[in-house]
């Protein structure tokens, strides 16, 4: 591994930690929020935004930028600090999080927040939006990719499968879906409630290329994203990222109950300490 790659991995891990700590800080302002599902996506956010995607923070609507759509919009609180860190908006603006009239709510609004490519929150829409964005790229001969971050619970939604079918049918090799496979939803453990498995075989049967990766291993994530087929290729890719809900905070890693939660000040301190000590 080159020194350059090593320092990139270090940087991305630091940014993922930053996202988690800021998430704790922002959720304190709100009084409750999506810890579990944001923490499972932290390394994915950071790898995409500090390594993979092309964008211009000074020109958020740059037509040639890569697109990022959150099927799991409820994890936006983990993305907001990253966009702020990259210069899409100021810390002062982010600090208005969920206050009356703030651009920043629990779910992201594309018309209010620079850098948000689509408003989301209704689980199951994201992949369809990316199908549209990828078709738009194809019509215009543009070389950008559309990335969709889906929750694994999101695969319960029938629309995801409509979108999966159409992405393969329209030969959208410029579309990349990432499934944050944290195995839990609001009510419990997916395998016990409504099985979505096997994910790989299902998507392969729908005509997708599927790769699996440890979603908290930045080096592995970089390798997967660096090995994406050419943007002009014809098969969409699904990356199944094996993750842990609440990753980074010991007691959150133990149960689905931390999908939405609140922490008292003393536990905020405990959580931040654990995140800072993550390896």
């Amino acid at each position, binding site marked *: 591994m080159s020194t350059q790659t090593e320092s990139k991995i270090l940087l991305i891990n630091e940014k993922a930690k930053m996202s988690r700590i800021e998430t704790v800080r922002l959720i304190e302002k709100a009084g409750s929020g999506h810890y579990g599902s944001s923490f499972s996506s932290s390394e994915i956010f950071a790898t995409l935004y500090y390594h993979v995607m092309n964008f211009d923070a000074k020109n958020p609507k740059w037509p040639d930028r890569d697109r990022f759509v959150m099927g799991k919009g409820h994890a936006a609180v983990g993305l907001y600090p990253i966009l702020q860190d990259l210069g899409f908006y100021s810390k002062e603006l982010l600090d208005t999080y969920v206050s009356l009239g703030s651009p920043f709510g629990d779910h992201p609004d594309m018309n209010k927040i620079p850098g948000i490519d689509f408003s989301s929150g*209704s689980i199951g*829409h994201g992949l*369809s939006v990316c199908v*549209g964005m990828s078709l738009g790229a194809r*019509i215009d001969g543009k070389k950008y990719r559309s990335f969709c971050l889906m929750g694994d619970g999101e695969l319960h939604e029938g629309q995801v499968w409509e979108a999966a*079918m*159409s992405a393969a049918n329209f030969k959208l090799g410029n579309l990349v879906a990432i499934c944050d496979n944290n195995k839990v939803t609001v009510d419990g453990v997916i395998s016990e409630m409504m099985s979505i498995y096997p994910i790989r075989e299902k998507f392969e049967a729908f005509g997708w290329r599927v790769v699996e990766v440890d979603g908290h291993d930045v080096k592995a994530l970089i390798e997967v994203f660096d090995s994406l087929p050419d943007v002009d290729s014809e098969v969409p890719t699904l990356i199944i990222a094996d993750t842990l809900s609440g990753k980074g905070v010991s007691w959150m890693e133990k149960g689905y109950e931390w999908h939405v939660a609140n922490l008292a000040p003393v536990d905020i301190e405990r959580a931040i300490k654990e995140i800072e000590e993550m390896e």
Partner: protein
Amino acid sequence: MVNKNLTEYYGSLSHLDNESWELYRSLELAKELTAGETLAKLGDEHPEIVALCADLGKPTRLIDFGNKYPDRFFNFGLAEKNMVTAAAGLATTGKIPFVATYASFLGLLCAEQIRTAVAYPNLKVRLIGTHTGIAMGYYGSSHHATEDISIVRSMANMTVISPCDGTSLADLIEESVKTYDGPIYFRVSRGREDSVYKNRNIKSKIGRANVLRDGNDIAIIACGVTVQWALEAAEILAAEGIQAKIIDMHTIKPIDVDCILQTAKEVGNIVTVEEHNIMGGLGSAVAEILMENGAHCKFKRHGLNDEYSIIGKPYYLYGYYKLDGKGIAEVAKKQL
């Protein structure tokens, strides 16, 4: 059925009687479904136009665009929710997506996708719900849409338009491409209706009602397919010495407030007509304007009275629900 040589195929059917028809030939009857044809005319000047259908490209005649621009025409199969949401994604890339399917599978089935992915982000997506109201006749309530105006007009940012014929639809679609922003829901019938505007030199403009006939005894405000029958009703009433003002309120949102208030003041008696539940549709929209402006006039909403349509052939149903010329005249007379 696989791809086939159409000339050979029709040749093989030459023994059949002329009255027999199949799906493709039935499209010739849908002459007022002009969206595809209009978009095909605009296609060169507006490369941003794209069209999406869900296995009903032919019955909605969106195929008239697809035949000319196959690279900008996408058939999503029977997956309407994906289609509507993908249209939203396309709109973010600078395209103007036109989405067409039966209104029951658009305004009703995709209500949440329309609200969340199209209306809330305020995207320039054009939704065309065809075969609306009870136009599908004996197909039954699953294929009727007597709630769609009510549903989509309660979505912020949404413009709602119910043109009465292909000429009006063409005018409004052209305006929607060239100068109008934000999402639009077009509500049209199955294209077999009479033309209202063909021999009238009146343009349709979004947000501005067209007064098709003057009269001082009663005003009939209609939208969509019922406009032609409101005109018929006016003839029937005129023969009895009753002068009816006929208004085509093609745009239900934003509604032409001035036209409504002026009519209330000048005529003092209004009947609204729509092939829609009287709750939440055109009649409700007009009533809101009258009440909030303190307009004093007689008023009646006429349409489906909070019920699902019985089974029948479309034109018998329109008669049964008093939405044809004779029925509207009867309702209007009672109101005098």
